[in-house]
C-alpha cells in the first residue's frame, strides 16, 4: 500500500536566493512528472530536521520540475536556505484546494499578495498569463515590508513591462533607493482600476492583511463569492489525520488552504477558532 506518511526523495536542481531569508528551490521531477493545481502545497521534509507545509510556486504546466519558495523562519525552514543543487528533499503532495482559475474566466482578476504570500500566487499568475485571453484585466498588487524583502524581483520587473498586466508594488517601509509607493496593499487596491462587480480577487498574506484586503474589495463592490483567500494553520500531516489544522468544521489541508470568502467570512471573524 502506498504510505501517505512517507515522503518521496526529490533532488534539488536549482537554488535561487530571493532575499536574505528566502530561497526558491527547483526540484527535478523529470523521472516522475508532478502535477498540481495553482494554490496547492506540499509537505517538504528535510532529512533529520522535520517536515513543513510549503506552497508550490512554479508553473503548473511544467511537470518535470517542482518549485518551492521558502522563507527560513524556524528550525526546519532555516536550514533549507543552505541547500545546494544535488541535495535531496522529501516531498508529499500535492495537497489542498486551488485558486479559482476556472471561475475567474472572463473576469478582471485582482491578485493581492503580501510577503511570502506571493509564492502560492505565482502559479496562478503564470496560469493567467499563459491563458491571457481567457481573462479580462489583470492586476497584481504586491506588498513587502521593505524593498530588500521582495520576492521574484526580476520577474516583477518583467511583468511590469507587459502591457496586458498592471503591477503595483508597495512597501511598508521605504529606503533611500526606493522610488515606488510606500504604504499598505489596501491603499493600492483602492486605487486600482477594475470592474468591481465583474472581478475576481485572490489574496494571500498575513491574516490581518487579508482581512483588510477583503474589506476594501467588498467596499469597492466585489461580491463576496468572487473573493478567495489562502489560510495558514499548523499542519503535521496534510492528509486530515493529525487534526492540527482544524478550523471550525474544516481541515485546512483539505478544505483549504484556498477558500472562497463567503464560505469563511463568519469564521474569519471569530477569534481563536
Amino acid at each position, binding site marked *: 500500500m502506498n504510505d501517505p506518511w512517507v515522503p518521496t526523495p526529490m533532488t534539488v536542481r536549482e537554488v535561487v536566493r530571493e532575499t536574505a531569508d528566502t530561497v526558491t528551490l527547483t526540484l527535478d521531477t523529470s523521472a516522475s512528472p508532478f502535477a498540481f493545481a495553482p494554490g496547492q502545497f506540499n509537505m517538504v521534509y528535510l532529512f533529520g*530536521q522535520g517536515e513543513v507545509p510549503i506552497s508550490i510556486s512554479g508553473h503548473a504546466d511544467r511537470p518535470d520540475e517542482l518549485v518551492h519558495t521558502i522563507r527560513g523562519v524556524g528550525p*526546519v525552514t532555516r536550514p533549507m536556505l543552505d541547500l545546494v543543487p544535488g541535495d535531496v528533499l522529501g516531498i508529499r503532495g500535492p495537497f489542498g484546494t486551488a485558486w479559482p482559475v476556472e471561475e475567474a474566466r472572463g473576469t478582471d482578476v485582482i491578485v493581492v499578495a503580501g510577503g511570502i504570500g506571493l509564492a502560492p500566487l505565482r502559479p496562478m499568475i503564470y496560469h493567467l498569463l499563459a491563458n491571457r485571453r481567457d481573462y479580462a484585466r489583470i492586476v497584481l498588487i504586491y506588498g513587502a515590508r521593505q524593498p530588500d524583502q521582495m520576492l521574484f524581483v526580476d520577474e516583477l520587473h518583467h511583468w511590469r513591462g507587459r502591457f496586458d498586466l498592471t503591477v503595483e508594488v508597495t512597501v511598508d517601509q521605504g529606503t533611500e533607493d526606493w522610488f515606488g509607493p510606500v504604504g499598505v496593499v489596501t491603499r493600492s487596491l483602492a486605487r486600482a482600476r477594475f470592474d468591481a462587480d465583474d472581478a475576481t480577487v485572490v489574496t494571500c498574506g498575513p491574516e490581518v492583511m487579508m482581512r483588510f484586503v477583503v474589506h476594501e474589495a467588498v467596499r469597492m463592490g466585489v461580491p463576496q463569492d468572487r473573493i478567495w483567500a489562502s489560510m495558514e494553520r499548523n499542519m503535521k500531516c496534510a492528509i486530515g489525520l493529525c487534526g492540527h489544522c482544524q478550523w471550525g468544521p474544516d481541515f485546512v489541508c483539505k478544505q483549504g488552504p484556498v477558500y472562497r470568502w463567503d464560505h469563511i467570512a463568519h469564521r474569519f471573524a471569530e477569534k481563536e477558532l
Partner: protein
Amino acid sequence: MRLAVHKFASCDGCQLSILDCEDELLAVAGAVDIAYFPEASRRMEPGPYDVSLVEGSITTAHDAERIQQIRRESKVVVTIGACATAGGIQALRNYADVEQFTRAVYAKPEFISTLETSTPIAAHIPVDYELRGCPVDKRQLLDVLVASLHGRRPAIPNESVCAECKRAGHVCVIVAHGTPCLGPVTHSGCGGLCPGYHRGCFGCFGPSSLARMEPMTEVWRSLGADDKTIDRALSTFHVASEANAAERARLEADDE
C-alpha cells in the same frame, strides 16, 4: 562540536545524568568534543564552545559574572534542571530572611558573597533551550546533545505530565485513588514517573505553560489537602517559578 558543562549552585545530579548515559556515553564522547566538563575531566579548555550545558542557579555575585562570560563564549546555551531553569529548591531563600538562614559569624565577611536570592540562569542571560526536571530526564538531555550535533530542534514537547501518563497507560492517581497530584499543571518530560509508581506528581519538572493553578488548587482541596499542604507542594524545586509564586500569593491573600 565543542561541548562545555558548567556548574552553579546545584546538587550535580543533572550533569551526572550525562555520565549516567552508560549505553551512549562513549559514542557521545566520540561524536562530541568535550572541551570543559570538570566533573568528568581534568582537561579544562577555554571557550569558545558550540554548546554549553549549564547546571545550577545563581546565588553569588561571582557566579552572576561567570554566567555572563559563559554566554559570551557559547553559541548555544542550554540550561539543565530545576536549579538552572527556575532557581531550584535553594530559591526557598528568596522567600525567607537569608540572615536568618546564615546566622553565623564569618571570619572574612568580605568573602561572603551569597546573594539573598537564588535565580534561574534565564534571569541573567538569554537561554536557547531549557530542559526541565529535578533532575533532567536523561533521554531529553541526550536528545539535546544529538539535536545540537545535527542542528535539529530538540524534541521537548510542551505538555502536561497527564499527556505522558495517558500515553504510558498509567492510571490517574487523582481519579482512581484520590491522591493529590500536580501532574495536570506540571511540564512533561519525566514520562509520568510518579503516577506510574502510585504517587502524586510533586512537580519536579515545574509548572507547564498550560498550567491553570486555581482549578488545580480546587482539586487538591476537594481531595482533602489543606492550604498549607498546597503551599508546600508549590514551594519545592520550582518555588521561584512564576505560576507557583502567583498561586501561593493568591492563597495567602485568600487567607487574609
